[in-house]
C-alpha cells in the first residue's frame, strides 16, 4: 500500500520530468542544454516575436486549429447524439468504424490522404491539414460528448415537447444548455490536438508550415535549441491552461446533470 503510493509518486515524476526541464533551460543563458546551469536570461523569449516565419506558422496553426475544433465538434455532436438517442441498424459497427482514427497510426492516415489529394490534383495547404485533423479529432470529441449525451434524462426533452416546444427549440433550450460544458470541453481538446499535431501536418501542409512543422525544421540547428525551449515553454503552458479549462467545463457539466464524477476525458 505504502510502496504503491511511493511508486505512483515516482511515476508522476517520470511523467513530468521532461516538461519540468523546459522552463529551466528556457531561462538558462547557455546555448547547450546541459547541467550545470550558467545564468538567468529572458533573451530566448524576447527573440521569439522577431522571427517572421515563426509568427506566420503560429497564425497558420491557430487558423487550422480553430476550424478543426469547430468541424470535429459538430461531427462529434451528430455521432454522440445519434448513439445516445436512437437505435439504428449496424449501430455498433458504424460507431466502431468512426472511432478507428483513434488507434490507426497517424502516418497511415497522413500518407493515404496525401495519395488521394495528389491524385485528385488538389494543392496542399491549410485546408488539407484541416481535413486530416478533423478525422483524428472527431473520435476524441465523440468520447467526450458521449457521456454528456448519454447522461441526459430523456424525460426533460419529452416534457419540453409536451409543453409545446418544437424539436428544434427543445434542442436549443433544453438539450444544448445541459451538454454545453461537454461541447466546450470537446472544442478545447480538439483545438489542443490540432495545434500540437505534427505527422499529418508534415505530410499535408504544402508550403505554409504549421507551428509543429516549423519547430521540426528548427530542431536540426543546435544554435536554435534555446529558442525552441522558450517556444516549448509557452506552448506547454498554453496547453495546460486549456486543459484545466476543459476539465473545469467537464466537471461543471457533470454537476449540472447532477452526477458523480467518475474519471477523466477518455
Amino acid at each position, binding site marked *: 500500500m505504502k510502496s*504503491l503510493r511511493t511508486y505512483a509518486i515516482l511515476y508522476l515524476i517520470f511523467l513530468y520530468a521532461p516538461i519540468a526541464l523546459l522552463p529551466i533551460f528556457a531561462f538558462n543563458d547557455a546555448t547547450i542544454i546541459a547541467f550545470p546551469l550558467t545564468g538567468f536570461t529572458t533573451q530566448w523569449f524576447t527573440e521569439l516575436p522577431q522571427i517572421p516565419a515563426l509568427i506566420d506558422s503560429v497564425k497558420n496553426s491557430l487558423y487550422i486549429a480553430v476550424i478543426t475544433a469547430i468541424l470535429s465538434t459538430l461531427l462529434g455532436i451528430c455521432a454522440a447524439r445519434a448513439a445516445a438517442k436512437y437505435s439504428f*441498424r449496424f449501430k455498433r459497427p458504424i460507431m466502431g468504424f468512426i472511432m478507428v482514427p483513434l*488507434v490507426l497510426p497517424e502516418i*497511415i492516415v497522413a500518407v*493515404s490522404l496525401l*495519395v488521394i489529394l495528389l491524385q485528385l490534383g488538389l494543392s496542399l495547404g491549410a485546408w488539407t491539414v484541416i481535413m486530416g485533423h478533423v*478525422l483524428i479529432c472527431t473520435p476524441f470529441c465523440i468520447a467526450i460528448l458521449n457521456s454528456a449525451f448519454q447522461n441526459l434524462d430523456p424525460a426533460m426533452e419529452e416534457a419540453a415537447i409536451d409543453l409545446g416546444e418544437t424539436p428544434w427549440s427543445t434542442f436549443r433550450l433544453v438539450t444544448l444548455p445541459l451538454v454545453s460544458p461537454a461541447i466546450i470541453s470537446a472544442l478545447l481538446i480538439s483545438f489542443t*490536438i490540432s495545434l500540437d499535431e505534427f505527422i499529418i501536418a508534415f505530410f499535408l501542409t504544402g508550403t505554409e508550415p504549421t507551428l509543429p512543422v516549423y519547430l521540426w525544421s528548427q530542431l536540426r540547428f543546435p544554435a536554435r535549441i534555446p529558442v525552441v525551449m522558450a517556444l516549448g515553454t509557452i506552448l506547454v503552458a498554453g496547453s495546460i491552461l486549456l486543459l484545466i479549462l476543459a476539465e473545469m467545463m467537464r466537471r461543471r457539466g457533470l454537476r449540472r446533470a447532477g452526477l458523480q464524477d467518475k474519471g477523466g476525458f477518455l
Partner: protein
Amino acid sequence: MGAPLAILNTENKKGLALISAPLGYVIAMLAVPLAAILLISFWTQDFQTFDTTPTLNNYREAVTDPLYRELLFRSIRIAGLVTLVTVLLAFPIAYFISFHVAPSRKSLWLFLITIPFWTSYLIRVFLWKVILGFNGVLNSGLQTVGIIDEPLTFILYNANAVVITLAHAFAPFAILPIFVALEKIDRSLLEASQDLGESKLSTFFRVTLPLAMPGVVAAVLIVFIPTIGDYVTPRLVGGPDGLMIANMIQVQFLRLNNAPMGATLAVIAMLSVSLIALLFVALNRRYLRGSR
C-alpha cells in the same frame, strides 16, 4: 414490447440521418484513401507518373529486400517492447488509483496523469533527446553530481532510447483502459475470495487480474498499434539503428518519390499490426467473453 414497427423505423431513419455526417466523413477521408493506398501498392512508379498495370513487384521487393524486412521486424520488436514496458509500468498506477485513492480524488489523479499527454508530442520527444543525449541533461547532471565519470552509452541514440521515449508518451493510453476495467470490478468478489481462504496475493492473481484483463488487452492494443507507425521518436532519438518502418514510408513518399513502394510498405505494416492484434485478442478470448 408492443412498440409499433413504424416508430422503430422512424427512429432508425433519424439515427442514420444523424450519423451519416460523421460516417460519410470517415468514409471519404479514411476508407477511400485507404482503398487508394491498397490500389497504388500494386502499381509502379514510372518516372513522374504511375504505371497502372497491376503487379506484385513491390511486395516481392518488400519481402526480399533485407533493409525493408529488418525495418519491419525492428518496428514490431520495438513496438512490442514499448507495449510490454508501458503496460507493466501502468498497471500498478491504475490499480493504485482504483483501489487506494479516495473516490473524490480519483479524477484529480487521472487529470494529473493525462496532462503531459496533451502537451506537444514533438516537444516531449525532443526533450527526451535532450535528456538522453551524449552531453544531455541526464549525463551532464549525473557527471556534475559525480555519480558517473563517462556518459552512459546504452541509452544513446538507439532502440533503448526509443523504448523509453515511447513508454513515456503512451503512458496514459495504457493507464486509462486498465483503470476503467478495475473500477468495474465488484469489490464484494474480492471479499468473497478472501473469506473463502485465498490470500491477498492469490486473490489478486485469481480474481482481480482476470477481471482486469479486458482493460489490459485494450491497453496493449491502444499502445501497440500506434507505436508501430511512429515517425518522430525514431527520427529524433533512434539514431541509425533505431529507425522504424514509418521513417522508410516517409522517405519513399517525400524523398524518393516512389509512392507505390511507400504504399506497399504501409499496407504490409498495417497487415502485420492487424494480424498481431487479432492473434493477441484471440489468445485472450476467455477473459474478454464476460465483458460483452
